């Protein structure tokens, strides 16, 4: 009788544990999905802020350079002008790169969020719960059958 009681208690606890584990994982993935959504928004804001700051800084740098030329009497022709052009091109390229980087961050965060949401649904699904608890129940049933049968024939 004792083994049977132990077996029943063990099966119940194990099955409950499997269900709880899946449920907790599903909840965690849901929270992660929310977190990644927040990260996407945050990445967008930071990207825009960085771009704006870069624009200000770059403009300030260019103006100070032009000012320095003007102050020292350098004519804004030839090499100084070409150099200014080079800097302007690099500035534009940098802005483009920053925009792309922001897009990449946002996209990555969104993809992660979608993946987490998907995993949350998978963890909480009936199929997953059934597949997690079935082996425990079958294993316990097998043990009980083996034990009872052994006692009769042994």
């Amino acid at each position, binding site marked *: 009788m*004792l083994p049977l009681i132990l077996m029943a208690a063990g099966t119940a606890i194990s099955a409950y544990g499997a269900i709880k584990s899946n449920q907790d994982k599903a909840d965690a993935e849901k929270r*992660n999905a929310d*977190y990644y959504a927040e990260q996407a928004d945050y990445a967008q804001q930071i990207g825009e802020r960085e771009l704006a700051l870069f624009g200000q800084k770059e403009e300030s740098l260019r103006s100070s350079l032009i000012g320095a030329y003007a102050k*020292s009497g350098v004519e804004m*022709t030839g090499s100084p002008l070409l150099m200014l052009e080079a800097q302007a091109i690099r500035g534009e390229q940098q802005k483009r790169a920053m925009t792309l980087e922001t897009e990449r961050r946002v996209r990555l965060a969104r993809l992660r969020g979608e993946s987490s949401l998907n995993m949350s649904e998978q963890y909480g699904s009936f199929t997953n719960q059934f597949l997690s608890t079935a082996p425990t129940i079958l294993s316990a049933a097998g043990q009980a059958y083996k034990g009872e049968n052994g006692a009769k024939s042994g």
Partner: protein
Amino acid sequence: MRTEPKVVDIPELQQTTGLEYTSPVQAQSVESAGLIGQGLQRTGNALIGLAGDVYDVQNRKLAARRELDSALDNQDYEEAGTKLYHAIKTSGKIPAKQWAAEFEKQWQPERDRIFNSRAKRDVLAAKQSEVYGHKVKNHFTKSLMAEGYAEDTLQTVEGLDQLPSRGASVAHLDPTQIDQQMKIVEEAYHKATLAGAYLPSVELKKRKAAFEEIVLGGINGQIGDGKHSDALKTLDKYYSFIGQEKAQAIESAIMSQIKSNRAEQRAAETHQQQQAKHKQEEGYDRRTSELIVKLNDAVTPEEKAAVGEEISRADVGHTNYNYLETRLKRAVEGPDDFAVYFGHIQDLYSGSKTIPQIRKEALDNSLPENNLLNKHGPELFALLNQREKAHKTDPMLTREWHNVDRRILGEVGATVNQLKMGLLSNAQTIAMAKITRQVNDYVRKHPNTRPEAALDVVMHTEASSGVTNSALPLKPGVEPPKAGSLKEVEDQKKYYLDELKKTPQSDFKKVGEIGDKLKSLGILKRELERKANSKAGKK
């Protein structure tokens, strides 16, 4: 002065924003979230496993009891005794005592019969050998005094369990304890035997054989390790147990090995001496290398003197010492100051030090009077001064070079004034430079063309090709077109484009004027379009 462009990079920006790409909320670890559930699952599985173990124990006991009953039913007492022995091993003491008592009760008549016949045989044997007979008599008496068969059997089983099993090491065995245990077992065995039980004899033989194997294995191991004296000691300890014949064979084997090993040992000693000599020489070389490195690192006379002191005390062998002495002499007197001299020049050229710094260093270091830096000092400083001058006459900044560009781009320079005020966007700057390059190209291809005419041609080409130069600001003095409707502006633009087609390209002045008109009309048109769009948006 030539200024290199500076581009603001991302890390610098992140510092200025003071923001990082993190969030107050952290991502959740999914694995850790499921830990409690997993723990419960493991606990449940452990309970299931425990239930299985309980089943196993119960079933083993039942099986042992069934086998015992079956043997007793068949009146096969020897088989029943063996089964009882296994039942005791399997099920523990508690049921064993009860089972043994049941067994004894059922077996009583058969035991008496065996006991009687065995007693007769033992008495006969006692007559043949006084000593053996004495032992048998002793045991015989004891067995008569024994309280019960079951206790004897249990004691035998316990004694057997205390014996070392296969795999034990001889080094860990306590001979006194083992002898004692063997005595207990043998006593119990005899008691049981005389009481009519043969049961533990097979197991006892097995255990004895296993123990002997351990002892012999231990002795072999000691011989293999070259510990012959230890092997002889072990052999002495277990001499009686192993038996005289076997023990003598082992002893003679050990002795012959000891003899052959002595010759090997002598050869090994000679080899060791040679090895030690080699090792000493290696030590000499290593120490010499260390001293050479130190000598190379020493720069000041004090450092060199310290290394010299170390060399004089070094134990490096005669040859190495001579070599080190030569190196030391060369380091102190020789051309090592050249390194200092050229080092200064390199520092200066790379820009890591200035002339005053080098002069100060030379004085601070108080180099000896005869060193090469002092000898060649004037020469070095002349060289340095020459380099300084070279810096001042950078050909990139000559007036001549400057004038060339100014002549070519004189006209463009007027609009560049706006650049100086910082009013142009990046796109405008790029457009400006593009025009400049085109003007340069044009002047290079047509050397007799005036720069302003070249600019006009370029502007005309841009305008006629449909490319708008909106980024380029208007030339000073050019009036912007008056505001009108979008249609009026388009009509004007069409008119000037037709004019441009009719005008020969050699008429630079007219082409230039038309270009300016078209440009200003383009700006106006876009402005009107922008206003129209914003109005439409508001509606």
